[in-house]
């Protein structure tokens, strides 16, 4: 990248501390200190992007609600601030490509009082190549790549999408995943084919799958080799949690249901004959409650929906179709699996979007992430 070719305006101050304060006061950070995006640091990020065919002035998309243009340059600046290494830039570009996909309804997602936020699930060689954690504590602290890549997405949501708590992001409480919510699938400890292969991508490709969900709910299920009902109990617990009446999914019944299985639970399900598809189908069949519980508890007796109930005992399903259940394996060994539940709203009702991560434009498979327009 030739010096001076960047299009972004510059910000100047006498000291780094002053710039940190300026960024924080002008809502250009997530509230935490950042790596200052000097031209040299941004150039290093753009160099890797260019290797994948993404020059700095290419527009990946627009980020709602402000519809700011996500140029590769702006993404690089935010990735530097988040602490990303240049080799992680392709992952961030692919994730932002997903964020800009109209199917994710980011304009509505960023406005709602719900606490959903984009979850990034990474598959393929990128997991190892970029140092993305998929095992113990993958969504917690200590895993630099996960934290920085997820944070880069949040910074783009702030700086390109214009979101800020209490001003344009009206989430009543928020959740820690709004700072960073990124992990890999633990393909080596999964008895199932990798998630991205089930979604139709070649095994050797790297893919980011993005969906907007709430915080993880833990499900403890004790597996017992002498209990032939172990797999059934686990599925029932997962289904009950998904259909729990306080969740939007229980009432609205749309959106992406994320099921993150610990490797121990995944193994038991696999040994009982369940593959990913059968798990999706079983959860869809089992996740329901009587309509009167679902609606009366939420709306009260005076609401039109409750008055219109023809059969209050009719099962009300929490999952619209098996395809809307994202099952993957991650986390350490143990008794806990997790579900992350959707808001279910917006025009497209909380689907998931997958984008291939392109590290080099010389690769043989797939194409680059979708490019919307170029300057």
């Amino acid at each position, binding site marked *: 990248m030739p010096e001076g070719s960047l299009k*972004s305006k510059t910000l100047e101050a006498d000291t780094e501390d002053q710039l940190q304060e300026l960024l924080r006061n*002008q809502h250009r950070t997530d509230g935490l200190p950042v790596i200052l995006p000097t031209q040299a640091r941004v150039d290093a990020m753009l160099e890797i992007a260019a290797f994948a065919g993404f020059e700095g002035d290419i527009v990946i998309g627009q980020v709602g*609600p402000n519809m700011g243009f996500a140029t590769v340059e*702006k993404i690089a600046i935010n990735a530097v601030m988040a602490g990303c290494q240049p080799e992680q830039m392709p992952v961030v570009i692919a994730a932002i490509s997903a964020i800009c996909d109209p199917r994710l309804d980011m304009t*509505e997602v960023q406005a709602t009082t719900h606490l959903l936020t984009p979850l990034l699930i990474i598959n393929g060689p990128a997991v190892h190549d970029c140092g993305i954690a998929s095992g113990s504590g993958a969504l917690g602290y200590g895993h630099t790549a996960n934290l920085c890549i997820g944070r880069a997405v949040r910074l783009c949501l702030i700086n390109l999408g214009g979101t800020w708590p209490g001003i344009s992001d009206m989430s009543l409480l928020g959740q820690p995943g709004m700072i960073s919510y990124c992990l890999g699938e633990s393909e080596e400890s999964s008895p199932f084919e990798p998630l991205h292969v089930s979604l139709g991508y070649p095994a050797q490709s790297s893919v980011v799958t993005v969906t907007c969900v709430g915080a993880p709910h833990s499900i403890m299920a004790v597996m017992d080799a002498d209990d032939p009902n172990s797999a059934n109990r686990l599925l029932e617990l997962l289904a009950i949690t998904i259909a729990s009446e306080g969740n939007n999914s229980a009432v609205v019944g749309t959106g992406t249901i994320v099921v993150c299985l610990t490797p121990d639970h995944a193994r038991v399900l696999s040994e009982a004959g369940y593959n990913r598809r059968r798990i999706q189908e079983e959860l869809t069949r089992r996740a329901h409650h009587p309509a009167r519980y679902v609606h009366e508890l939420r709306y009260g007796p005076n609401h039109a929906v409750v008055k219109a109930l023809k059969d209050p005992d009719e099962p009300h399903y929490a999952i619209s179709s098996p395809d809307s259940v994202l099952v993957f394996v991650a986390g350490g060994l143990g008794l806990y699996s997790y579900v992350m539940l959707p808001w279910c709203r917006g025009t497209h009702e909380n689907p998931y979007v997958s984008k291939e991560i392109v590290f080099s434009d010389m690769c043989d498979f797939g194409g680059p992430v979708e490019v919307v327009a170029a300057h």
Partner: protein
Amino acid sequence: MVVILDPQAEPGVPIDAYNVFANVRRRGLSIALVSNGFPDATNLMNAVGRALEAKLDAPRIQLFERFNATILADKAVIQEISKSFDVAVTAMGHCGSCTSSAVRDAVNIARCGIPAVALVSEKFLAPAQSVARSVGLPDIPRAKLPHPVAGSGLVRIQAIADSVVDDIIAAWEGEKCLKVA
């Protein structure tokens, strides 16, 4: 001197001026009330309709109701309003996404040349302004509601409607300054 690059992008939609107004004092004014289905939004709209009937000369009022506050009014509804109505009210901005939809409905109607007012809780005026700017019509009229409206009961909702109706009429006529209902 330390120099860094600005991470922020300008909003992608350019700003347009809001300049659609109407003579609402004539007989038989046709009024579209667009409820986004947030709890009690339709009750508020029905109450607003009654208040407008009491203030104006034999208005023709029609309610357009949907049951998902997180989506925009259907294009066919906007088209019908643009062809058959003189003015419109959208409601209710009472949460994040429903504020977005109420404001954006008003913007979509106003862009068809019909004066429109979005009813927004005083607690959601900041996101309403942000949404209005993001879609390029920052001066789209809004009438402030007290908070909460939803769940406050039908008697209170009628009182709120009665107190905000003058602001709605003023906005249709081109007055910007709206008081808290």
